[in-house]
C-alpha cells in the first residue's frame, strides 16, 4: 500500500480496519477468513504470526503513516515479553496517542 498523507486523524475503527488490511496483506486472504481478528487479538498467539511476518506488518504500518508516527522506534523499545503479548489494541492506542498529540 502506498503512503497516504493522513492529515485527518483516523477514528479508532478506521485504524482497526487499516491494521486488518495490513495483516491480510501479510498472511494472505484465505487464512484471514479462518481467523476472528479483534482488537484483543495478539500477533504471536492468536494470529500465529512469526517474527518475519511481524516485521513485514510493521513495515506496512511505517510506510502508511510515514513520519506521522515513529512506529519503528516504538516497536524497537519493546522487549521480548511485550512483543510476545503485543495485540492490535496496543497499536491502535499508540497511533491514537500520536494523532492527539499533534
Amino acid at each position, binding site marked *: 500500500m502506498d503512503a497516504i498523507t493522513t492529515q485527518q486523524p483516523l477514528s479508532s475503527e478506521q485504524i482497526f480496519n487499516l491494521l486488518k488490511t495490513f495483516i491480510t496483506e501479510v*498472511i494472505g486472504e484465505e*487464512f484471514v477468513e479462518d481467523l476472528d481478528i479483534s482488537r484483543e487479538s495478539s500477533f*504471536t*498467539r492468536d494470529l*500465529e*504470526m*512469526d*517474527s*518475519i*511476518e*511481524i*516485521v513485514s506488518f510493521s513495515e506496512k504500518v511505517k510506510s502508511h503513516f510515514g513520519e506521522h508516527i515513529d512506529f519503528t522506534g516504538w*516497536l*524497537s*523499545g*519493546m*522487549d*521480548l*515479553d*511485550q*512483543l*510476545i503479548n503485543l495485540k492490535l489494541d496496543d497499536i491502535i492506542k499508540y497511533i491514537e496517542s500520536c494523532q492527539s498529540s499533534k
Partner: protein
Amino acid sequence: MASFAFIVPPLMGHINPTLSLGAALLRRGHRVGWISLDATLASRLPEGGELLHVRYDQDDAAKKDNEQYLDQITKKNVSGIESIKFLYEEVLIPLNRFMYDGIINILHQFQPDVIIHDHQLFAGAIAAYQLKIPYATSVTAPAAIKMMEDLPGIHEWEIRQIVGLQQELGIPGDVSVATSEALTLVYTSKTFFGDMALPDHYKFVGPVILNRQSLHAFDWERFRQLDKHPRILVSIGTTFDHSYKKEFFGKVIDALGGAALTVIVVSAVSLFEEWPDNFIVQDKVPQLELLPYLDAVVCHGGHNTVCETLSHGLPLVVIPIAYDQSHVAGRVIQAASGLRLNYKRFKATHLKEAVWDVLSNPSYKTAAQRIQQSFAQAGGAATAIALLEELAIPKHFHH
C-alpha cells in the same frame, strides 16, 4: 603447529561446520579438540580430533538436575517469538551455566592457543575471556545477527540474559563478551545475509561443508530404481518434537503422496504405519551426499540445511518453526531462491503448490545458483582457517 579447541552445544547444525574446519586444521598439522557434553560426538570427529568430554561427578545433585534441561529442546512444543524466550531461559542459560566449570577445567588441561566457541555457547567466550585465551565466535545461526536490526528489542533482551550469566560467573559490567571482537566467523555470504553495517571482525566466510564423514547409510538402490521424476528432500531437522512431526509429515503425505516425484523424508519410519510408494523414509540421511542428485528441498529453515541446499544451487520451500528460522526463511524469499509457508497455517494444498512452483519455475533455481556462486566466492574453510591461524599467532608478533 598450534592447538585449537572448539566448544559446541549438543546440536547437529552447530557442530557440523566445526567438523569441516577441524578436519582442515588437523590436516595442516594442528592439534584440535572438541569440548562437548555429548560423548557420542567422538564417532563423528575427523581423524585425529580429540573429544574433550564435559563430565561431572555423579553425586553432584545440582549438576544432575541441570542436565535435564538439555532434553528440553527436543521435547517441548515451541514456535514463533515465544520460542526465543524458551530457548534462552530454559535451554541456553542453564546449558551454559552447566557447562562452564567443565569448560574451565578442560581448558586448564588442554591449554589451546585459540578457542572457537559456538555463538550460543557463550560460556565458552566467558571462559576464554576469564583465562585470557584468544577466542573466535562460530556463528551457526547468523539470522540471530540480522534480528538485531529487525527487532532490536529481542536482541537487547538476549544480551541481558547473557550479561546476567556473565556477572554470575564473575565478569562485572554489562558489556557482553559473547561475540569475539577478534574474529566472528559467519557461515554465509553477505549476498545471502543481506545488507547490514557490522564491525570488521565479522567475517562472512560462506558455508563450510567439505570433509565431513557421513555415518548414515542410504538406500541408493531404491533411489535409483524409482522413476526418473524430480527428487526432493523433506526435513525439519533434528530438534523438533514427535507430535510436531506427526502433524507436519501428515500434511507432506497428503501433499506429495502418489505425485510424480521421488520424496526423501527424514523421519522415524514408525511415525506412520504406511508411507506412500514414492517416499523413501529414513530417520537419518547422508544429506550432503544426496544433495547433488536432488531438484529441491523442503525444510524448516535451519541455517545449515538452507545453506547446504543453496550451496548446491537448489531451490527451497521453507516452513520455519521456531528460533531464528523465520528470519532464515526471510532471506530465502529476499534472494528469490524459494517459497515460504507459515508452519502453523499451511495446508497440504499449499505445500503441493509451492513444491511444484519451485520445481517448474526456473527463476528459483537461477536465484539459488546466484547464492551458490556468492558462497563459493566467500572463501569457505580455507579463508576461515587462515583467519584462525592468524589468531593463533601470539599478540607480540603482530605488526
